[in-house]
């Protein structure tokens, strides 16, 4: 029973991984930018949520009203800069690695490297849980799961159904040809970066709801979330979601059956294996 409980809990947590990964995956797939700085945006969002809620007593979920616009602009600006500076795919990995390291240190300089958590007084969600009789779920994880699914499904539909979405998929296929058909990759890229920034704000808030914060967490995401991005297939939203759930459930199970410290070992070994067997991602239908 405890295995089922932890697998389901892991699965729910996987939704948050998937949400974090979605932004990275889409910018990589569509714009050929591997944006490690995305983890920095999530980290800042988590801390801003913490700050606004703790200082001003705003309901943590309502802080989205502040963080989403900020991150929307930040994500768009970042993408604009990548584009203006003509950053190549491999260089984007280096540049955004530099950005991430700098961001983590800045956060640490501002908020200190200690673990910090919103107090129960400002975070009414932290202690609530849903009891189904046999299984108990913290509200925070459940919330994270539902919002993540909703956002990813919405983004998937937007990519399929809207004009901008089709244009983005055309860009992902072939930037030059898309350009010849009048698709402005600059404007679309900035828009996409901005939307990804907004998802970072949501992911940061959801993380802050359930967890104590420390700047180094961003490096833990770096590992896990990248696993999700690659397993899901670069640029594939539904694959990312599936991979997030898979990774979450796997680490949940391993934590209980072996030990929490063993989770990264099993997880990363699984990633290496998966990369070797299916370099294009576990959930991508083979083309060619």
């Amino acid at each position, binding site marked *: 029973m405890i295995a089922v409980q932890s697998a389901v809990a892991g699965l729910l947590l996987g939704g948050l991984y998937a949400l974090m990964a979605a932004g990275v995956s889409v910018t990589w797939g569509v714009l050929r930018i*591997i944006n490690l700085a995305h983890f920095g945006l999530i980290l800042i969002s988590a801390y801003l949520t913490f700050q606004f809620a703790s200082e001003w007593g705003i309901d943590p979920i309502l802080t989205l009203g502040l963080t989403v616009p900020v991150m929307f602009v930040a994500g768009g600006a970042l993408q604009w800069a990548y584009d203006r*500076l003509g*950053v190549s*795919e*491999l*260089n984007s*990995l*280096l*540049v955004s*690695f*530099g*950005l*991430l*390291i*700098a*961001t*983590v*240190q*800045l956060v*640490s*300089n501002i908020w200190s490297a200690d673990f910090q958590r919103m107090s129960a007084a400002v975070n009414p969600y932290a202690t609530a849980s849903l009891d189904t009789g046999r299984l108990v779920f913290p509200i925070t994880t459940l919330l994270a799961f539902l919002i993540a699914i909703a956002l990813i499904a919405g983004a998937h539909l937007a990519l399929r159904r809207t004009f901008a979405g089709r244009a983005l998929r055309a860009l992902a296929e072939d930037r030059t040809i898309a350009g010849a058909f009048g698709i402005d990759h600059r404007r679309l890229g900035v828009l996409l970066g901005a939307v990804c920034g907004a998802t970072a704000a949501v992911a940061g808030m959801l993380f802050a709801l359930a967890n104590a914060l420390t700047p180094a967490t961003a*490096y833990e995401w*770096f*590992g896990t979330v*990248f*696993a999700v991005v*690659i397993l899901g297939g670069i640029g594939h939203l539904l694959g990312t979601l599936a991979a997030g759930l898979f990774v979450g459930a796997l680490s949940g199970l391993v934590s209980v059956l*072996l*030990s929490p*410290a*063993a*989770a*990264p*070992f099993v997880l*990363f*070994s699984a*990633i*290496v294996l998966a*990369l*070797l067997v299916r*370099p*294009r991602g576990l959930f991508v239908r*083979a*083309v*060619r």
Partner: protein
Amino acid sequence: MIVRGLAGIALAVGALAVLSLYRETLGVPVSVLALLTTMLFWVTQATSWNILSGYSGYFSFGQAAYVGVGAYTTAVLFGRHRLDFGLTVLIAAGLCAVLALGIGVLAFRLRSLRGEIFALLTLAVPFILAALARINGSIDGGQGIIVAVPDFPASIGLFQDFLYLVNLLVAGAAVAVAFLMARTRSGWALATIRDAEDVGEALGVATFRYKLTALVASAVIGGVGGSIFALQIGFVTVDSVFTLTVPLFVIVMSVLGGRTHWIGPVLGAVLVVLLQDRLTAADLLGWQPVILGGVLIAMVLAAPEGLYPRVRALLPASRRARPVDPSELDIRMSPVDGAETALVECDELTKNFGGVRAVAGLSLRIRAGELVGLIGPNGSGKTTLVSLLAGSVRPTGGTVRIAGRDTTGLPPHRIAHLGVARTYQIPRPFASMTVRDNVAMAIMFGREPERSLTRARRVATGHLAMVGLEKLAHAAPAALNLHQRQLLEIARALATAPAVLLLDEALAGLNPAEIDNAVEVIRRIHASGVAIVIVEHLLRVVRAVATRVVVLDRGSVLADGDPATVLADPAVVRAYLGKRSHA
């Protein structure tokens, strides 16, 4: 050259050793020695990283794996079990070599491996090892391990002297290895991998072997450095060795100093450690990652080649290679004997891409001395056939034999060594090398490898003359126009001393005058005894040069014979021009 360089490195090591050996006489403060020790540790690590990632372009985020394995080997075996310290260094080197072989054999065997995927794969390795160390009580178990001071001769002086000298020795060795690799065949092989890996492979560079060698060399150096790092920190924990700081530092150092030169990482390591020291003195250590991150970004964007090329530009101009006298040109052509033997034999060759059958049960024989025009409508499988013959694409079914040897499934460089050379539809020169060195690569790694770069360069000039590019020998490929680049492609392919040369639309996009010139070049090459397969859309060219024409349609041979007959064949005209124009 090489001996002088090594002597220079040995001299530098000797001079630095004096600082410790005569420390008291010279009045060198111990704190300076400690700073230099840290610097040397990073020189070792950055050099280790650069041997793989700088030279070959495969970026690794996994440097911490070697530091960690090295440090834990010494911590467990020497710190806990009191094994001989020197022995643990050797064991660390061995373990890292095994680790690197494992990573390399798995990763570099992937046909679709891209640089980004390799970077992320190497990122996962330290995470796995850190978790392993944490959960395994016989390694660490989460407690950390104290490493005592080992025995060392009293004449050395303080423990800090010992640390310094050991680090100096290791860093000196690391730099010497990096220097040797840069100045010998492996350095050039890795440069072709960095610039255009599959082109290098097709010219005869055994890319897998060179990448693996670089990876193992990098790992061994990193592991030895990590092993002595355990002494330096005295207390080894998972967080102190398997940290992202390690890849951050080595990447910043190498990018800062310059990745393509052996001294780049040394320069970068010295600068970064000095910066660290100044920041510590100013009590601003908390800003260091911010500054390093900024430096990384600025360098990648503004000066991706690093500081070293700029420093060198300030030094007096280095000696330029003397121009080659055209009279000493020497071109080696190695036609295969016996004009009657089939040079290329394809039997029932098939290639499917997903559901698309690009080549369908194609059988073809090409004899020595032929000049075959390969024509056919778009999508008829011409380029796929070229790729199948050169080995860059593996057939779904059927066999290819070159000069009687079955080459099906052989890596492209082996096929190049059997005498197949190809050009690419869109020219793909090695961007970081001069025009002449592009050709010299093919001579160094081709069918009859010429080990000396100097001689290879001389021969290369001859090949450039064959295509009329000798005046541009010292130009960068970027300065060439399309026609010249296509001629460079041909010269480079020719320089592998092929028995059969595959020209894939080598005339595409040229103007009439350039085409006439290219046709002349092709005739000249053919006259020297090389069999040629030319994929071409311009029937005028095919008619002018080909001794035989093969028409492909939907992946199989539609017609095959002498040009006049084939080009007049109604079926060919129909396939090529459509029904209406036939009427």
